[in-house]
């Protein structure tokens, strides 16, 4: 049985009243969605809040007459919408959000990771999303396709283009660094 079908059945069992089915889905996806939220927000606290809120919203669905064919797509959509709500709120309450500590202040972040992070921020939102889901959260292209409502082939192409764009940005950044260092050497002479 494909994973998507298995998860759809798990969710249907949860809606029918079986708590254990949602716990199963939690174990499969909580960490991956948390990493996705972490990459979106840059804050561990905020990521945890967003993902926890997502599970609460999902739990509330049991009392409704909703039908969910793509539960993982639903989880992803709720996390994304909560993040967008947060971005809107950040415009209004900048001071509060800036006080939350970013995980990027971790001392073990090395130079390569810094370069990748800087280049990821220059990617388009679509490219960044597919790379985060694939390379950081560990979702397969088929799963991402189900989440985003696209074909697996379209996601594979998007991922390939995103990686190429990221590579080019890294090359450009490396060149810029080399040029700067050679200019500083020349000015030192």
């Amino acid at each position, binding site marked *: 049985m494909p994973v998507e079908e298995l998860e759809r059945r798990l969710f249907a069992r949860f809606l029918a009243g079986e708590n254990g089915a949602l716990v199963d889905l939690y174990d499969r996806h909580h960490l991956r969605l948390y990493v996705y939220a972490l990459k979106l927000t840059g804050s561990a606290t905020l990521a945890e809040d967003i993902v926890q809120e997502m*599970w609460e919203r999902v739990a509330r669905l049991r009392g409704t007459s909703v039908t969910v064919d793509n539960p993982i797509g639903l989880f992803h959509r709720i996390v994304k919408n909560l993040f967008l709500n947060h971005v809107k709120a950040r415009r209004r309450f900048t001071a509060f959000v800036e006080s939350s500590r970013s995980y990027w202040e971790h001392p073990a*972040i090395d130079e390569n990771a810094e*370069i990748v992070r800087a280049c990821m921020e220059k990617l388009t939102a679509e490219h960044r999303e597919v790379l985060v889901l694939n390379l950081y959260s560990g979702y397969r292209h088929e799963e991402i396709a189900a989440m985003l409502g696209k074909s697996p082939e379209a996601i594979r192409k998007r991922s390939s283009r995103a990686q190429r764009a990221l590579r080019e940005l890294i090359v450009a950044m490396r060149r810029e660094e080399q040029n700067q260092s050679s200019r500083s050497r020349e000015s030192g002479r």
Partner: protein
Amino acid sequence: MNDRNRDPLVERFLSGAMSSSEESAFLARHGGDPEIRARIEAERTMRNGIEAEKGVLPMPPAGSRDRFIAMLDRTSKTGSIPPEPESGGSLRRTLLVIAALGFIVTLAVMVMRSTGPDRVPQSASAPAAARSEPRPDTVLKSARADTPARMRIIVPATKSTTTRTAGSSGGTTATGRSGGDTSIAVTPRATSDSVEVAPDAAAMSTSRQEKAKLPVTIQPPTINAKKPDR
């Protein structure tokens, strides 16, 4: 060689998918190409950077799963998600209510005492000696004549004495006021015709205590009897 042909080769080289002979051929052919070298370097940076970052990504808090399961249980019981109970919240609320009630009662007693009808304001023209005298005693007075002796309120009085029966079967209190028609509240338990009474020292000021040292003889107690003026 264009990018489309180069990228799969670079990817295969970096992922280790090439055999050793393929790798040697690849390096011999493209190793000197600065463009390919830059791409290989960028690919390495990307992979190493992502791996390094994944190694330091913070994990979700340890209690996340337990909180999720608890939330799920609450939802399945109630159909909605009630707020998590605050630890000590109800105790704090109870203490606050008690403190507020205590404050209100204290305030009410203070207001009653300061605006009571028996309080005699000192006039500015009163003699200095009179003003320097201790404040009139506060005596225990029955709220009502038929009220049990234990239910008392303290009111200020100018000229009054309080006597308590000695040797009576208990608790009889007689309150008198020399200048007025104050009623005497007596519990009818005293049986003797004449009762020796000692002053209630605690209820009198020092000056009153001195006067009250003399034994007082009062008439047999009569319920609600009017005390004759001296």
